[in-house]
């Protein structure tokens, strides 16, 4: 029986981690320019000089 509780805890923990990751990336502006992100991988170096 106790293994089930662990499984539920792990499942919820993973869900919360996913939610937190999404909210972090959202707040970090990673969804602001979806088209640009797709094109930027074709650039050799970032003229901005950062990430």
């Amino acid at each position, binding site marked *: 029986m106790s293994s089930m509780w662990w499984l*539920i805890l792990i499942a919820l923990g993973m869900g919360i981690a996913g939610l937190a990751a999404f909210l972090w990336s*959202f707040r970090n502006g990673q969804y602001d320019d979806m088209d*640009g992100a797709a094109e930027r991988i074709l650039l050799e170096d970032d003229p901005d000089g950062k990430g």
Partner: protein
Amino acid sequence: MTCCAPVDVQAAFGEPMLSDTLRDEIRLASRDLGDGTRQTDLSVPGVKCAACIASVERTLARLPGVEAARVNLSTKRVAVRWNTADGGPPDLIGALRGIGYEANLFALKQDAKDPELARLVKALALAGFCAMNIMMLSVSVWVGADASSRQAFHLISALLALPALLYSGRIFYASAWSVLRHGRTNMDVPISIGVSLAFALSLYDTLHNGPHAYFDAATSLLFFLLIGRTLDHVMRERARSAVAGLARLAPAGATIIRDGRPLYVPVSEIEPDVMVLIAAGDRIPVDGVVDQGVSELDCSLVSGESAPRKAAAGDAVQAGVMNLTGPLTVRATARAEDSFLAEMVRMMEAAEGGRARYRRLADRAATFYSPVVHTLALLSFMGWLLATRDWHSSVTIAIAVLIITCPCALGLAVPIVQVIAARRLFESGIMVKDGSALERLAEIDGVAFDKTGTLTLGGLTLVNADEVAPAAMRVALGMTIGSRHPAAQAIAESAAQRVDNVPAFGRIEEIAGLGLEARLGGDTYRLGRPDWATGRWARNDVSAGTSISVLAREGEPLATFVLEDRVRREARETANGLVRKGLAVEILSGDRVPVVEDLALRLGIRDFGAGLLPADKVARVAAHGAAGRKVLMVGDGLNDAPALSAAYVSMAPATAADIGRIAADFVFLNESLSAVSDALGISRRSRRLIFQNFGLAVGYNALAVPVAMLGYVTPLVAAVAMSLSSIVVVANAMRLSAARKPI
């Protein structure tokens, strides 16, 4: 990566750069980030691929003083951070123009991030997380968990549902509360009541070891409804930002003469009697009187007149008029907030027509729906209480009725159709402001068109290019290539497609109101008004809508150029199609009677009004409204803006003046006027689908409510019924995107 290799297009035309004015404008439109660093947002519609991103960012980063430049491809904007020693901005727009990208400044208020969208997405993410985990636990309960694990699962579900209810549900509570306070009701009222009661009852049952809990129903309901709401919002924002990205018309500042020296100031600081310098190609910022200089003015946005008007000392000019050929000094007669443009804005506010009183279909449905549902729930509660004397089971059944009728399908019935309709419109180049505009467009029984810029393209085109000899065409191209005059530009554009090998003129002089004069060898060439070019009086005997330019060498005519304000593609077909659909079609124009009459005849439109002032247009539109007719106004000019906002629903081409685009419910990007009938067709079909969806939702309720009232609904039944009805409604809405899709 070859889609847009940068080319130096501007060099071909050698347009004089108004660099100083532009730099001052950039400074006015930038934002202070502290430490002397400022940020400027530019809209660059030409950015399309990785090569564009690279060249734009590299070019800007190389400018002295620029710290960073970042392109956003989705919104087609560039954010530039700069910090120069003297505080003057780098020539951002000039640099971009040098590599072939047109750039416009973005006004400050437009660049703020969208907090509403962020709120919706966060609420959606939380509701999705909670709903899915609760559903996982609920499925375990439904397949038969023993009593103690069921109890534990319900408790975990309650813990998960609480944040979703508090955070994600607040969007609905806030909306429901705001309408309830005004004594009205909308869809959010039954949603809020249903969700909160379901949660409260389930919590009570869980604490008292009851077998059923509705946490899954409550949270997945929030999740589904938030999906619809977020989609709706994204669609509207996309349309809004696409509209905002178009070129800005009103200048942020102007050059005035103070103490004998030119000085660039914000428009709001211009006082009456100040002298304002207006270069060729600039818009006049405030109403005034010409003091010095001779030029021609493009009044098409202000009065609807398509032919350029001559202006000399003593003539009154209105804000928003474009100065075409020569520099002018204008003595301001009014402050910016008393000028023509501001007057139009005030008239727009006063004119707010049918749209303010319009109530959305969903809200109208809700006014019938919520009382019925709440009465049914109350009746089942009283019925069961009388029959069984059991408080708890009576409350359970009443809440089951509320949950099963909770308008998941009804809440999705309208937005899902409108989101799909908006996407289809977007694909055909039409932007819609919101769902209410779609609903109103489907109800119209008349259409009023503006003339210049709406039925016509608002600019001159050469119509007899094939009749002109190539030799004359070459001379004409050489003379017109640097001019800003619309007639000259039309000739240059058409000539450039036919001939190359342009003769090199030493000096080309532009004589305002008359034409262009150039010398080649010993000959003087003139291109312009027939009587001036040939030195003889000539009769302009073509129809009223056209203008004629003659090219002459030493007074001897070489070629005649017929220029016309070209009618938009499919204008005739569209007008006829609208009449066939039983709509009353008319033209409301500020232009002269013969010009309007000529066009009306050609398009087969019987009703027209010419020489109308902005107030007359509003009066005509308002008279229709007072007579109970619902009129779609299609217009583009500043003079149309009040009429656009007075009309039941309105539409503007993307070339329209700023305030016109803001006032209009729809904005279309294409050159073809068929956008009007396309939009009408899609809005009418989506209205039909919305009514079908209402029918489906009512049918579902007719089946489900008796079952619920008899007490046979368990959380499992509720979950299945809710999902099924939502899927049916969404699938029905999808037919809009499948039907008659152009391939």
